[in-house]
């Protein structure tokens, strides 16, 4: 894949930005992928970054009607693409 077309990770979302889940990095172990899907991070599902607390703290995302906090070590493995919904 051309570098310009590299998918963005969930961790890169700015506050208030909404994207759709594109998939997961293969480096993310399968049980964690399944667990994220169980939480609602399905392909095509809208995810909004609600908060980016300071000092590298885990970030806060909304998926469906549930709010989760994800650390960089897992959020960087979730790929997202621009959503029609745009920013929240």
């Amino acid at each position, binding site marked *: 894949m051309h570098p310009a077309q590299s998918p963005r990770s969930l961790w890169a979302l700015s506050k208030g930005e909404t994207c759709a889940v594109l998939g997961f990095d293969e480096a993310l172990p399968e049980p964690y992928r399944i667990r994220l899907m169980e939480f609602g991070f*399905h392909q095509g599902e809208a995810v909004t970054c609600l908060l980016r607390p300071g000092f590298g703290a885990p970030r806060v995302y909304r998926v469906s009607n549930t*709010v989760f906090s994800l650390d960089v070590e897992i959020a960087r493995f979730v790929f997202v693409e621009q959503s029609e919904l745009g920013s929240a």
Partner: protein
Amino acid sequence: MNRVLLIGSPNSGKSSLFNRLTGLNQRVANFPGITVDVASGPFAGMPDVELVDFPGTYSLQPISGEEAVAVEFFQRALTDPEVRHVLCVVDATRLEKSLYFTLQVIRECQKRGKPVSVLANMADVLAVNDLAFDHAGLADAIGAPVLLVSARQGLGIDLLLSELRQKLISQPAVSSRWSETPDELLRGSAHQLAQRFGPRGDVLVQSQLRLDSFFLNTGLGGVAFFCIMFLLFQSIFTWSAPVMDAVETVVMGMGATLVPLISNQVIADFVADALFGGVGAFLVFVPQIFVLTLVIGVLEDSGYLARAALICHRPLKVFGLTGKSFIPMLSGVACAIPAIYAARAVDSPWQRVMTYLAIPLMPCSARLPVYTLLIAVFIPDETALLGLVGWQGLALFLIYFFGMFAALVITGVVSRFASGAKSELPFVLELPPYRLPSIRPILRMAINRSKHFVTKAGKVILAVTIAVWVLGYFPNGGTDLGTSWLGMLGHWIQPLFEPMGLDWRYGVAILSSFLAREVFVGTLGTIFGIEGADDNMLPLVEQIQGSGLPLGSGIALLVFFAIALQCVSTVAILSKEGSFRLASRMLVGYLVTAYLLALLTFNVVEALV
């Protein structure tokens, strides 16, 4: 006995519902072959039917050891002929999160012919926010009854109980609609069903976001966090203190009343010092455990505990800990015993062990008299920088900091090299909605935890107290500690402490401090022939200064007390909450580490002086 299983994912309100259905009348249940303790209790109004509260989990596909135990427990329970029905709790306001798990539960129940009902909790929240939920449509779609209930307000509970009673009598036929459906299809179905039947709109998420914008704000959220932690710390130190004093006064008062009635001197001494002294020494912790459990319960039920974990996660992660370790560690600065109970809030078993490792190194209040004595002996009561900095205060700060630093270094090193850390789930934390806490279940939890301490740890503490009393009392009837069996032990272990310039008197004081660290001061006072050294240390300070104890020995003792796990109550509760193996390994590991570091300190200081 007919049993009904209650199952649900975390934050679905399952525990509140359990308390509502059992009227808080619960006990610990056990299933054959399963080592997890689960709450159970008879249904309010159906005393012959027991409700079993299944440990909360997000999925029947476990990804951690603890989840695997919970899932195994569920699978075994389904084969139990006494289990007649399964109630699966979902949060009706956040249906998608719960529905995949619900379908998994339904599938497993259908495989084993167990009827299942779905309880859509939070009906009150739906009503207040005017959110529509087509529970009848969902029931048709999944082939299982769906009842709207509110654990908090009791809505739908009567209907649930009457329908359950009917089902237990009639034993309805169990469909097999989902019994062969693979997980992937269940996930897709759950998504579609939640979209079709679940409540729409984001009013709840928006109101949650407003509060999160404050509590997770880098500036204001930090101030709020500091204030809440300050209150928590006050609750353990200050609010518990009058009740702790009252407990001690009552126990000692009872002893003072009873002991004069005993004519035999040995029995009278035993009852006064070992029984009442021992009972008083551990009962005094009960108010702290109760208050801390209450405060943490309120923080958890309100939703703030998850936010506090998020705030603390980043700095603690470096040392193999999690954000949820912070509150137990902070509590450990007051006392390790309630702190170890507070570590139950850490979900991951591995990180809970790391938290257990850190807690005994936090500078607890029992260390303060020891530090105060040794600092007064060696550090002059002088100030610097125009009186702004006192050397004794600085020394106290440094030894406190040393304990906390050692806790982080040890957990950091252990988590780097131990295999358990590698199987940890990366940090994914559900942030539950903010709610007003339900006080009654939290009170019940605080009472249960206090009872657990008295009944489980109390026996061990009392046994060790009696053993130390016997060693210190015989063979000379308690007249001279130096010639008692404890004194002989002190002489026997003197070669261990000689390399750091300490004689048998310090060995005896260290041995007796295993009852509680502060006993070190009283024991040294007794050996040096000073009455009431606990209350007025000055004569003892002068005696030790006059005895020519080297500076290196004093600092070595400070280091030893900062690391060593010489507190029988802490070891006992670690053994009950963790395991005997963990407690004994920590006891030996910290003793050896403390000894070696103290030895090193002595040699370095003496070489420099």
